[in-house]
């Protein structure tokens, strides 16, 4: 009975993470559409949430990677508590970076949290460092933003060659229409890659509980539907502070740049999802946004803000790992039953409510987000 309660808590925590993932990341997805005025903020967020939901059903390759290739979980209560610790590490880091307006990476937070908690719980042998973390997470995570940067840069150069001599009015309108498509694809890509990470973690918990045999990997339908719903709801609630960072503080973009950046981000994420790479969608989208600006004019990019984002990226994996490991230790203080997860979950809920209240007191309303058009 105790392990069943822990499974319920882990699933609820995983879906909460998925919600915060949508809340934290999808602002990045819609920021370009909003900053170029391709869509009003509320429409963009609603549209993105629907396509995030749909994206979760596209494939299961990333879920398989997260469940099988990052850590090895034992089918016992320690394994369950490790999954719980990893999730809490990721959620805590997401909330901290959200509170301070830093576009971190939910994906790296999740991987970092899981690695930290499993490392403390099961030791280094339970971490698939080379083939899994390095080969399927870290190197693709390094390549993806650079690739998005190059693709967006090339795309905007080609676009300017094609439409450069046309009157700006119709062109801008045309690219705003295009952004409805590219923004939709980006939201679909986000849902595809990120919702699957939660599916993978819930499946890990089910393996740890013995509900699913380790040698018979499959993602139950209810896991797919619940993960899709959670990320879609998180997307809808949105994160306006990060919209501001991604949409106008990196560089002020025109509609063509927004279109190129979204298209590049979407193609890289979808291609990576197809082969099972759990990318950081935030890193990839940021790379595309910076690439579309740098190709036009290097000085158009506010490199200081881009540098701050890089620092947050670098911090995410170790910080989430430390919090994940620490959470596992705190949970173990209360034994291997459900008491630890219940107490830690209560603490997380209280902390989250506190941060939301503080944020609500400080945040500007959505309509106050500066919307800019044209390069500065």
């Amino acid at each position, binding site marked *: 009975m105790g392990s069943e309660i822990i499974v319920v808590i882990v699933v609820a925590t995983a879906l909460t993470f998925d919600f915060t993932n949508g809340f934290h990341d999808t602002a990045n997805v819609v920021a370009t559409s909003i900053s170029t005025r391709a869509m009003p903020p509320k429409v963009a967020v609603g549209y993105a949430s629907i396509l995030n939901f749909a994206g979760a059903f596209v494939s299961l390759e990333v879920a398989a990677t997260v469940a099988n290739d990052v850590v090895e979980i034992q089918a016992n209560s320690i394994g369950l508590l490790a999954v719980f610790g990893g999730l809490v590490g990721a959620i805590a880091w997401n909330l901290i970076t959200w509170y301070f307006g830093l576009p971190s990476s939910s994906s790296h937070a999740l991987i970092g949290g899981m690695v930290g908690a499993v490392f403390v719980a099961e030791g280094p042998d339970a971490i698939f460092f080379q083939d899994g973390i390095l*080969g*399927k997470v870290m190197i693709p995570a390094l*390549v993806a933003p650079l690739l998005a940067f190059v693709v967006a840069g090339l795309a905007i150069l080609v676009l300017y060659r094609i439409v450069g001599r046309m009157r700006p009015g119709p062109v801008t309108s045309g690219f705003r229409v295009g952004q409805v498509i590219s923004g939709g694809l980006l939201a679909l890509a986000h849902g595809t890659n990120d919702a699957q990470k939660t599916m993978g973690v819930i499946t890990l918990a089910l393996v740890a509980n013995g509900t699913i045999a380790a040698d018979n990997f499959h993602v139950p339908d209810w896991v797919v539907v619940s993960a899709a719903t959670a990320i879609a709801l998180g997307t809808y609630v949105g994160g306006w502070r990060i919209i501001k960072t991604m949409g106008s503080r990196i560089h002020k973009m025109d509609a063509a740049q927004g279109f190129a950046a979204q298209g590049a981000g979407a193609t890289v994420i979808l291609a990576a999802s197809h082969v099972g790479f759990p990318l950081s969608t935030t890193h990839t989208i940021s790379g595309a946004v910076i690439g579309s600006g740098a190709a036009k004019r290097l000085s158009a990019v506010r490199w200081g803000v881009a540098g701050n984002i890089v620092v947050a990226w670098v911090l995410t994996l170790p910080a989430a790992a430390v919090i994940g490991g620490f959470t596992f230790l705190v949970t173990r203080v209360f034994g291997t039953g459900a008491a630890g997860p219940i107490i830690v979950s209560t603490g997380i809920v209280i902390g989250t409510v506190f941060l939301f209240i503080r944020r609500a007191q400080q945040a500007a309303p959505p309509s106050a987000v500066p919307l800019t058009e044209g390069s500065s």
Partner: protein
Amino acid sequence: MIATIVDWDALLQVIWVSLAAGVGVTAAWGFALLGSTRAIEVGRAGRAAEAVLYVVIGVAGLATVIAAIVFGIVILTGD
């Protein structure tokens, strides 16, 4: 060590597909805009043959975008 732990086939697939689709679809949308906008302009100027050419360019660009998206989703959901 890196050479043996990275799935190069998968990584190279991501790279070439992203380059081809990202740049290709974006360029196709650019041609769709070019064709549709220019077709209206030259049509108003009475240059019918030129307008037809731009319509063809615009339709080809739009068709390429739609085909690429449909093809991509079919490939993604095919596994």
